[in-house]
């Protein structure tokens, strides 16, 4: 593998170079790879940096080295797609070399693309709402799931909002269930906090509220990977956080405490390890639906 254009600045405002992107991914690999293992990966590539032309790429690039693993997944309209699988550090570095700054894995594994291992919520604030408003909703979301005897885990999106993951890792699971369940939870929050929450995507409804985006729980959707960089002005990353951190940021109303750039993420990993480890293994059951149809 040849690394090229290492001096190229991918984040102009921050002066963050391609070499630094590659270095970040190489160093985050140990904690990040388990979360990518076996999952069809969608790449978001920024060949000219975060301010330039970018594109989503589901099909693993044709001109890939022969040691890149792929998974063939049957997609609805387009037939089959060979997705990249990212299971080792070399692949992660190769993806960084392609300027695939953002990595978006599926919530399911390629071995069973219809069985999500995670229920995910994307809490997206509509300005002037911000990540602090997301924290407030996240705490309520956590409480809801606690009442069902389930644990949930928050991460920053690396952009404006938060994501809450509810690990399932259950043998019989399908998007139909996770999608409906997540939708019901979003509706419930919207009903209980109509001034703070919306469950519909419509942008203009979102103003000053938090969109509880449940629709990620769908076979055709992906969610940004934990530890993935985001293509923002600065090299922020989707970072797992503890509920205690989240609550203290909420109490102090300090959104900046929940914004982590590449260097900070690496330091946090040294200190905390991978806060998202339970998402990989924790087996949880969704409450049974009222009456089977």
């Amino acid at each position: 593998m040849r690394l090229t254009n290492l001096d190229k600045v991918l984040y102009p405002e921050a002066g963050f170079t391609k070499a630094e992107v590659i270095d970040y991914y190489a160093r985050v690999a140990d904690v990040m790879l388990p979360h990518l293992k076996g999952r069809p990966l969608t790449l978001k590539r920024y060949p000219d940096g975060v301010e330039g032309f970018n594109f989503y790429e589901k099909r693993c690039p044709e001109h890939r080295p022969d040691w890149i693993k792929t998974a063939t997944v049957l997609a609805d309209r387009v037939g089959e797609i060979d997705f990249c699988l990212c299971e080792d550090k070399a692949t992660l570095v190769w993806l960084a070399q392609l300027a695939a700054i953002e990595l978006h894995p599926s919530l399911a594994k390629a071995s069973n693309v219809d069985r999500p291992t995670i229920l995910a919520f994307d809490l997206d604030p509509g300005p002037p709402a911000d990540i602090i408003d997301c924290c407030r909703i996240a705490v309520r979301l956590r409480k809801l799931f606690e009442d069902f005897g389930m644990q949930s885990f928050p991460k920053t999106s690396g952009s404006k909002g938060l994501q809450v993951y509810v690990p399932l890792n259950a043998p019989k699971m399908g998007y139909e269930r996770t999608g409906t369940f997540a939708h019901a939870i979003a509706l419930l929050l919207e009903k209980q906090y109509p001034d703070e929450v919306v469950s519909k995507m419509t942008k203009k409804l979102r103003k000053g509220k938090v969109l509880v985006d449940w629709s990620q729980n769908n076979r055709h959707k992906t969610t940004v990977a934990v530890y993935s960089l985001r293509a923002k002005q600065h090299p922020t990353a989707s970072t797992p956080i503890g509920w205690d951190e989240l609550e203290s940021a909420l109490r102090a109303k300090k959104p900046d405490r929940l914004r982590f750039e590449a260097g900070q993420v690496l330091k946090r990993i040294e200190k905390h390890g991978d806060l998202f480890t339970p998402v990989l293994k924790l087996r949880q059951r969704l409450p049974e639906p009222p009456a089977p149809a």
Partner: protein
Amino acid sequence: MPRAIWSGTISFGLLNVPVKLYSAVSKQTVRFRELRESDGSRVRHKRVAEADGKEVSYDDIVKGYEFAPDQYVTLSRDELSELDPKKTRAIEIKDFVDLDDIDPIYFEHPYYLGPDKGAERAYALLTQAMDDARKVAVARFVLRNKEHLAAIRPMGDVLTMATMRFADEVTDPDDLRSELFEEKPGTPEKRELDMARQLIDSLSTDFEADKYRDEYRESLLAMLERKAEGKEVVSAASEEPEPTKAPDLMAALEESLAAVRGESSDEVPASGSNGGSSGGTKGKRSSKASSSSTKKGTSKSGSKSSSKATASKSKSASKAKPKTKSRAKAASK
């Protein structure tokens, strides 16, 4: 309670087991009557002679076999009955075979066999012996003047009997080949085969018969019920394919949460390792939620209807669709 439709005796070797025959299926098709549209009068069919339009009574009807266009040989009822198979009450076991050897294409109508009075022991003996041998009995018997081939096999401690088609009743697919395949199917590539295999594997599951339902019948019955109640039926049968059930589920979740919080608000399940509870919001939330709460018991059995009520109050409930759906369910019982 279905009644026995026939009784006879299974016989093989020295063993005779008097049995009664019950149909194993109850046809669930919805049946219609013909009515005159203007006044709803029942419509009756009459047999009339083509020659003069006069009604022909049942007794005056003979059966004709059309051996050439418009040329018939006729057989009277007496002549026909001479050919009737002997009125025998025997279910004569001819062979024992492996179930796998009988292609399902041969099976016709399923029945249960029950022991006649006093035959319980012999019946149990035969059932268990067949179960132990893992064999199916191929038998002949006469039902309603027709000779039948049948497969008898144990299902638990009950014997089932399926009538079977005779070999010459089943069309050989070779005779249909030119119809089945307009063009010669090519040989699939290995890559395609692998993918198809993967797809099959991913859809592979255990067969659960009650997973599949006759949805047409259910919605038809639902529509009929609504009409019977005098409600306008516009397009109840043409629901959107998959109306979201999320609002229903939401209301049900709300209820069960209220129940959880109301009954054991101090018994919150363990949270993540990174601690920090949301004590402040908890009290507020539970009081809010329990205002619409019911007891746990109620929410369990009655969750369907009560959740519907809640859902219809909320703006996001999707019109009357869930209603139609649950109606269909009720009607099918």
